[in-house]
């Protein structure tokens, strides 16, 4: 033994990278298991109301890939990725670097407002590029709902029984996506002051823009109504007679009974009124890394409030959408709620790991993928529990003070609303 000990040559070799990653993965898995166990113990010790509030936080379920992903600090990764992409790229590396990125992700460089690639100091600026005027003409049909962004249609259809179908038949409920109509605590609700809405009008024969009144704007766009009249309910749409079918009119007593009966089935706030002849529709658009990442208003509508769900930042790639049920209800998202000509309208940008921040141009207060977001949500949840209220899982702000005449922030079709930014 002594001879072997003294004569055996010792060779030092590096530990394989894969082994290191596996060790870190196991460590994270162990930590998450322990955290989950502690959470369950904490919940068991809570009073009933608080326990319910805690359980409202949705947790992912799925195959082992999803379970491992759910243990990763995705928000921290996203922030690091964002910081990295805000580092200035050396001047002479910008053109080859951005051209390589464009070749990999299919960016059309001819559409960019600023064609000189040297002028984009970093990938974050290039990612949030603007387009040349006129390269995205709006559909001339004023009755059309426009695409809010460049991208790919993942899913669209009618909402049946309050559930949005995800890819491959997986579903999630609207309440989970948009939040329910619970009374929001003053702790999590704020009134956001925004500038008075107006319409920017591009003159067809000039390169200039000017302000237009609601009436002028409506006339120019071939609309038979103005937004204030739409929202105040004073205007009756001549071509919207199907809302109340005359054949269903009856005596006031029987009508009251029918309404009462129908109201029993109207369990969710976003459901169309039982008396109307409308339905709920949805469409999901996926933006690939090479796409133009600003988003626009698809129709003339009014945003009345926004709900910020802090959530996580899983990738929203088509693969993960197939793999992870209810992905959109887990991710950080900003739900904009409002009204359009036909009733309820909602617009929900959903964040992802690589594009962590969602920017809304008319909401300076909104901070997404922020270190303070989580703590603010935690504080709000604790305060709501202290006040005996149920924390709805989101922070809400209303735009009710946006205008003297409008209950919300008005947007015209095609108007830029915001965008997704790196990190």
């Amino acid at each position, binding site marked *: 033994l002594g001879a072997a000990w003294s004569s055996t040559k010792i060779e030092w070799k590096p530990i394989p990278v894969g082994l290191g990653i596996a060790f870190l993965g196991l460590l994270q898995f162990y930590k998450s298991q322990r955290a989950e166990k502690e959470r369950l113990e904490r919940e068991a010790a809570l009073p009933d109301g608080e326990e319910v509030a805690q359980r409202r936080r949705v947790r992912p379920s799925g195959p082992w890939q999803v379970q491992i992903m759910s243990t990763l600090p995705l928000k921290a990764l996203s922030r690091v990725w964002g910081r990295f992409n805000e580092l200035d790229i050396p001047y002479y590396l910008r053109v080859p670097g951005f051209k390589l990125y464009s070749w990999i992700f299919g960016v059309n460089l001819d559409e960019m407002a600023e064609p000189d690639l040297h002028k984009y100091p970093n990938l974050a600026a290039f990612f949030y590029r603007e387009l040349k005027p006129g390269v995205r003409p709006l559909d001339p049909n004023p009755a059309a709902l426009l695409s809010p962004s*460049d991208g790919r249609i993942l899913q669209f259809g009618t909402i049946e029984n309050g559930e949005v179908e995800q890819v491959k038949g997986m579903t999630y409920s609207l309440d989970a996506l948009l939040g329910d109509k619970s009374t929001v605590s003053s702790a999590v609700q704020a009134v956001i002051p925004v500038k008075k809405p107006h319409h920017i009008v591009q003159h067809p024969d000039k390169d200039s823009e000017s302000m237009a009144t609601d009436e002028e704007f409506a006339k120019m766009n071939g609309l038979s109504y103005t937004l204030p009249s739409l929202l105040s309910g004073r205007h009756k749409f001549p071509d919207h007679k199907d809302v109340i079918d005359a054949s269903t009119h009856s005596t006031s007593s029987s009508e009251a009974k029918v309404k009462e009966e129908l109201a029993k089935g109207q369990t969710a706030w976003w459901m169309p009124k039982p008396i109307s002849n409308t339905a709920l529709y949805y469409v999901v658009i996926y933006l690939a890394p090479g796409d133009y990442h600003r988003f626009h208003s698809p129709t003339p509508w009014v945003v009345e409030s926004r709900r910020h769900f802090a959530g996580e930042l899983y990738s929203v790639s088509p693969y993960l959408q197939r793999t992870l049920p209810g992905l959109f209800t887990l991710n950080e998202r900003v739900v904009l709620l409002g009204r359009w000509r036909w009733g309820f309208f909602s617009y929900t940008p959903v964040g992802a790991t690589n594009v962590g921040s969602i920017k809304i141009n008319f909401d300076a207060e909104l901070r997404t993928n922020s270190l303070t977001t989580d703590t603010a949500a935690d504080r709000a949840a604790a305060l709501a529990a202290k006040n005996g209220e149920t924390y709805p899982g989101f922070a809400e702000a209303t735009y009710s003070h946006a205008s003297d005449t409008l209950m919300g922030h008005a947007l015209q079709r095609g108007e830029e609303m915001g965008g997704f930014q790196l990190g």
Partner: protein
Amino acid sequence: SSIVLVFEAPHDVQKGAGAGWKWDIEKGQRVKVGQALGEV
């Protein structure tokens, strides 16, 4: 990133009469800003 639109529109049971909502897109289709997704 993704964008989800959820909206109320006239029911498409009267599609033949041109009164309801009608989609102008297909699943998997590439779209650009300003392109029509559907119409009433």
